[in-house]
């Protein structure tokens, strides 16, 4: 049996077409994929069905025999209300997906599964619930027993026939009328982990995906009028006049998923990212110096950019490409060159609700017919989803178990690229599709500012590192793995400084391309590049639910009297200084300040408090800047371990203010307002704010009165 499988693999290697491989300088760093797919799929537009055949070759790279294979059948999440996905969605109060309507359900049936020699494996096929018994009706994970365990280093070739009902869009997969976005659609093996077995979780409501890198060849047959966009590079087109159908073939190596879209209305436009036009020599030199790399290592390749866009969004074509160019440029310069030949950007077909999602070499953006220049949409979503291609796509962590390693990194990176390419933007706000943000003159924000708002409250229920479906709810999941993780990364950037941080991110990205790193891998890179142990940062702020909040509780100066009351021993005699003597001395001084001699002194007291549970550790300290009324400053540090500390300064001038974290490193601090405290009350902007608050209430009351 083993020999037959090995022979089968050899044949497959000869017969399966060689997918487009990533460009050579990256391929050298890549592992050989453990999987090869060839998939034939036909879209039945009338019945909303997919009919598919999949041939895979899976190689056991572990040092132990593997008796079975486990597959994801993601679309069974939309089969009925017993699926883990829909059961969990039902429990959500804010971000729950509605279950499909009657007739809108989706599912996937494996109708046949065989070895290359024809051995029927279907009798050994079972649905399993790897995440516990809570969802016994879930059918999103399937296990199939092999006739004999697969020895280390051996490969198995399987052929699966499947038949899928396309859902009316759920979780970004499905259709609206005759527009389709097809994702998570084919039976996909889990990831085999040595000593742990198959890592294949059920499709959960708050989770994305995890799969092995593979070489793909996918043949998609659709009615002739359809425009198709897909992961990978289109290599062939075959038109069948008799059936009025077209088959498109797409190939791609070293990706772990494959998605496609088909829509008769959309426009398909191609542009080239020409590195020499987009990046100057000075930018290359600056990046190389920052990263400590030879300049040739930071040079970027040319890339084919493909856009599928709805006709009504035609005037936004250049806006889409400009954002994509910025993303390719900065991700490429900072983290490493984009390794594939193409990237496909899909403006999702109307009402397919498939916008804002990433797949290898393809992502969905999302826009409206009415947009505002000040609102960075679709730019934000383009930069974000393309960015996923760098983290989820290339540094392919397990999104079930450590979503923050993708979402947090991508959110952080998005903010960096947008800030560099566009500056701050206005938050999107519309009324029935009409943008109203410009009318309301909403303020502009950088992403890190808006991220922080969610980040500081996200800590209430869960640590950032919780498994995706074990978060308190969708809001906690989202705020933790996106915004809190991004805010923590920016905080870490502030702690390490720009050069060290740039090298951390580059090293982590390039070292773990085409791998499946965990938190430990990133912490290891941080410690290695920073040259110090920063593990405490992750323990304190990612693994715990502790709030980080240092602040100034009090600041005041008191004049030190020249004479102090009491009984003093001097020259063998004892003398009492009375209150009257002190008052007289002060009166004299007030009337005629001494022209010479020491100026009066003030004792300035600054009380710092640790309001949160989280603490700075390692070599980090709480910095304090004290400003005095003559413009001078004093700086001090506090180890921040106790609940409070008192700092005292004796100077000939009164204090003006005290501020912790004056460099603004600790973005994760839950209360920046208490970071500083002045002795003077009422700042002008607060007065202005109060007048605006009053005005708002006056208007609300006047509005209410119109109902009288």
């Amino acid at each position: 049996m083993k020999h037959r499988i090995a022979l089968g693999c050899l044949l497959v290697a000869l017969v399966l077409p060689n997918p487009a491989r990533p460009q050579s300088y990256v391929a050298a760093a890549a592992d050989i994929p453990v999987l090869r797919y060839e998939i034939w799929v036909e879209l039945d537009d009338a019945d909303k069905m997919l009919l598919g055949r999949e041939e895979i070759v899976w190689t056991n790279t572990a040092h132990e025999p593997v008796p079975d294979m486990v597959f994801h059948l993601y679309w069974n999440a939309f089969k009925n209300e017993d699926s883990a996905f829909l059961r969990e969605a039902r429990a959500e109060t804010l971000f729950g997906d509605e279950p499909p309507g009657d007739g809108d359900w989706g599912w996937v049936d494996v109708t046949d599964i065989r070895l290359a020699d024809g051995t029927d494996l279907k009798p050994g096929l079972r649905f399993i619930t790897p995440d516990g018994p809570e969802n016994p009706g879930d059918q999103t994970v399937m296990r199939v027993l092999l006739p004999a365990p697969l020895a280390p280093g051996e490969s198995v070739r399987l052929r699966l026939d499947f038949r899928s009902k396309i859902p009316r869009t759920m979780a970004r997969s499905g259709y609206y009328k005759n527009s389709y976005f097809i994702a998570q659609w084919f039976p996909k093996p889990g990831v085999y982990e040595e000593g742990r077995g198959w890592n294949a979780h059920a499709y959960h409501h708050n989770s994305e995906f995890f799969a092995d890198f593979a070489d793909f060849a996918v043949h998609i047959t659709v009615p002739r009028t359809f425009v198709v966009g897909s992961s990978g590079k289109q290599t062939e087109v075959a038109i069948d006049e008799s059936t009025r159908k077209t088959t498109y073939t797409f190939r791609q190596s070293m990706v772990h998923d494959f998605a496609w879209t088909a829509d008769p209305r959309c426009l398909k436009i191609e542009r080239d990212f020409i590195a020499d036009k987009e990046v100057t020599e000075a930018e290359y030199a600056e990046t190389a110096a920052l990263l400590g790399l030879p300049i040739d290592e930071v040079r970027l390749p040319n890339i084919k950019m493909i856009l599928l866009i709805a006709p009504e969004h035609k005037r936004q074509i250049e806006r889409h490409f400009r954002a994509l160019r910025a993303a390719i440029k900065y991700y490429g310069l900072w983290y490493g060159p984009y390794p594939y030949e193409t990237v496909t950007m899909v403006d999702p077909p109307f009402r397919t609700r498939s916008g804002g999602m990433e797949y290898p070499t393809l992502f969905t953006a999302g826009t409206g017919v009415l947009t505002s220049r000040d609102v960075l949409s679709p730019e934000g979503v383009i930069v974000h989803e393309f960015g996923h291609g760098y983290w989820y796509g290339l540094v392919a962590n397990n999104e079930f178990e450590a979503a923050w390693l993708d979402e947090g990194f991508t959110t952080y990176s998005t903010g960096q690229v947008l800030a560099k390419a566009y500056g701050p933007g206005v938050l999107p706000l519309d009324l029935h599709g009409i943008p109203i943000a410009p009318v309301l003159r909403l303020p502009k924000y950088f992403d890190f500012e808006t991220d922080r708002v969610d980040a500081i409250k996200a800590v209430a229920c869960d640590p950032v590192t919780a498994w995706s479906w074990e978060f308190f709810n969708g809001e906690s999941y989202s705020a933790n793995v996106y915004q809190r993780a991004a805010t923590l990364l920016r905080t870490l950037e502030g702690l390490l400084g720009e050069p060290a941080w740039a090298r951390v991110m580059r090293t982590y990205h390039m070292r773990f391309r085409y791998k499946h790193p965990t938190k430990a891998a990133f912490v290891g890179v941080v410690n290695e590049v920073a040259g110090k142990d920063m593990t405490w940062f992750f323990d304190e702020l990612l693994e715990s639910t502790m709030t980080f909040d240092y602040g100034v509780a009090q600041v005041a100066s008191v004049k030190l009297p020249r004479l102090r009351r009491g009984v003093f021993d001097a020259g063998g005699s004892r003398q009492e200084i009375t209150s009257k003597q002190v008052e007289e001395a002060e009166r004299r001084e007030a009337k005629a300040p001494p022209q010479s001699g020491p100026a009066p002194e003030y004792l300035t007291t600054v009380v710092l408090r640790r309001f949160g549970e989280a603490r700075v550790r390692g070599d980090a300290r709480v910095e304090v800047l004290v400003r005095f009324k003559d413009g001078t400053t004093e700086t001090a540090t506090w180890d921040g371990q106790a609940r409070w500390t008192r700092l005292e300064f004796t100077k000939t001038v009164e204090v003006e203010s005290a501020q912790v974290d004056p460099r603004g490193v600790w973005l994760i601090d839950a209360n920046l307002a208490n970071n500083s405290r002045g002795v003077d009350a009422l700042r002008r902007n607060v007065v202005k704010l109060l007048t605006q608050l009053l005005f708002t209430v006056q208007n609300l009351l006047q509005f209410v009165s119109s109902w009288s």
Partner: protein
Amino acid sequence: MGILQVLGNGLATTVRKSRLLVLLWVINFVFAAAVVSPLAIIVQHELGRSYAGSNVRLLDLSWRGEALLKYGNSLTAIGGGLLAAALLFLGLYVFLNGGIIGRLLDREGRPTVAAFFADCGRYFGRFARLSLLSLVFLILTYEALLRLVSALISPLIENARVEWTSIILSNLHLLIALLLLSIVHMVFDYARIAVVADEEKKVLRSLSHALKFLKKRFFRSWAIYLLIVAGFLAGTVVFYAVHGLLAGPTVPFVLLGFIWMQLYVVFRIWTKTVFFAAQAEFYRAHPY
């Protein structure tokens, strides 16, 4: 009488009775200040001595996020307090409407405070009943008419092939809802005017007067109403255009900004009196 003449006369009346505006503005200001004061104490406590207060803005996400984190558990209480204040103000305006219409319809009389509050007391019972009745009409409008409109438009929106269809239809839906609302408003404005102008004791009869009046000249009445709405919207645009120029943080800008905002509040109150004055002019010029 043409509608422009009606509007002109209405405007002239409100100018003559400008003391009303001052009185209503003072009431609005004092009430709003009382509502705002607890929030102002919180803002002052959090930001008054912090550098964060140096560049804080009304729609500043940072301090709002922090305040939400700190006072999130009190949101229900704060929201409840604001709702109670709003309901109280609504009740107060049911009371004040009597004084507003009473003084506007008294062509020769001066809008003294005593006369104003005497009218408030005189008509309060009838106006309160009219307000409850208008609530019934509003519910009926939304439950019956608007549901009917929704039943016609929603399937078109749900089955839209392109985004434009959806946007146009959903905004059309909103526009229809607002126009229906304006009609209900207008009917009850005339009913209130009928109570005062005809010294009608029965609110149903005053409503009947209003309906008979509107039946004969609905479109002209509606045009007057919509013209005033348009004037209000134009004034609002001007307000925000100028307000944007007063964004500086210096003392003169803060002061000018405050004065400009209060002028807008006066403008809002004036618009309300113009509604009543113009409609009263029209009602009196064309007895039902």
